[in-house]
């Protein structure tokens, strides 16, 4: 088993829209992943206005008010899951309700246990 990070992106407008109707879909996804023992963590992020970006690329630590890239789409949530391989992780990503109005980036988590 490997760990995969599923990063959920959408626009701030979509994120702010009323999503009460799709709550059962989220709860169902979370419950089924938990039951299958695949879910390590999941969370919804606060809006990008609360983000601070840290860099030391210039040699000194600099803080920027805001998310890393000013693009139309922003990171709004995540799942940290266990999966056998990429296909299984992609299978979970396809089940995230947000895919209909956003994107899910699937990133393997580096194995640092060596």
């Amino acid at each position, binding site marked *: 088993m*490997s760990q995969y990070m599923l990063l959920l992106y959408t626009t701030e407008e979509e994120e702010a829209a009323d999503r009460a109707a799709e709550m059962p879909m989220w709860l169902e996804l979370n419950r089924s992943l938990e039951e299958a023992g695949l879910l390590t963590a999941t969370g919804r992020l606060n809006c990008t206005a609360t983000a601070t970006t840290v860099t030391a690329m210039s040699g000194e630590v600099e803080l920027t008010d805001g998310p890393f890239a000013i693009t139309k789409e922003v990171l709004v949530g995540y799942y940290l899951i266990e999966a*056998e*391989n*990429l*296909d299984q992780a*992609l299978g979970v990503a396809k089940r995230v309700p947000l895919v209909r109005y956003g994107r899910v980036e*699937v990133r*393997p988590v*580096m*194995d640092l246990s*060596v």
Partner: protein
Amino acid sequence: MSDRAADAVTRAFRDERAAVLATLIRHVGDFQLAEDAVQDAYAAALTTWPRDGVPANPGAWLTVTARRRAVDRLRRDRSVADRAERLAELIRLDQQEHRTVSEESSIVDDRLRLIFTCCHPALDVPARVALTLRALGGLTTGEIARAFLVSEPTMGKRIVRAKRKIADARIPYEVPRDEELPDRVRGVLRVVYLIFNEGYSAAEGDRLVREELCSEAIRLGLLLRALMPDDAEVSGLLALMLLHDSRRDARVDEHGRYLAIGEQDRARWDQARVREGLRALQRSVRMRRPGQYQLQAAITARQMEEEPDWRQIADLYGALVKLTPTAVVELNRAVAVGFADGPQAGLELLLPLLHDPALERYQPLHAAHAELLKRAGEREGAARAYRIAIELSANAVERAELERRLQDL
């Protein structure tokens, strides 16, 4: 070195490399290590076969040798995470030596695994193409770079990055499950057809390398058919590629001008290829599952007849447009209808395309529009359309041809 042994190594490289590599990737669980070990095995064959004779089963010899070289490489490389387990597995495999029937059939599966891995949708399309040509076609990085007009280091990086992603993201080395299979097969066919078209259509680049791409794509098509004989689209794509390839030498005239099928010198068609293509088409049609490649092959076959039946061709385009409603197909359908039912009927189908702002600068649309208007006797409209098409032409030969037609009006 004896010529016979050298020939045997060359032949084994051509015929066995993909199968040996495919099996070894499963055994060692690592694309790069498997590739290096297979390379080692061929180097070993070059020194051993001339001295000891060519083994009875070159593929088996290469697989065993490559596996042992992989063991050597793993022993030297201490950075690999699960080195101990991999070594144990390889040594276990080495001891059970004799190939059984199930091992033979798993060789077929291994090549399928390799194809599906190389064409995995998590890799970007240029990487899929490069990896497929490298792993299954046995082209060198330099050859692939020349065929796609990029520098060798760029192509090298593309391939290395793809292999790293397969390892790090754990793209599975397996044939997709039934529910994913149809989509994934389509993805594979797309890669193969892309390889073929890259070799067939472009005028730029090294001609020999480009022709090599067509041959490789057909070889991949044959391999896919051997592995998935019951898939109608696999046979359909093979038919399409063979029918195009049969006209390879006839498709341009001595000035480098592209000729439509009806203008080509039929004596220069490769009749053996034509027959092979028609056989593949029949086989695909018999499965009664029409798909986009089968329909395109059927259309090509009809167009290659001495008296093309435009009614049938137009109907086939009608079926194709339902499966792939792209501007190119809509345009070709309008042209076919223009021949079947007269230029007015064709022009009517062209109308929505001419109103689509996305196609405003689509040169073939204006060239076809001009032809239909000319045949409908609307000289002024035709002249206008020719001028737009000429302005949008990227290549000199094509532009000259359109100018000639404009003069003829």
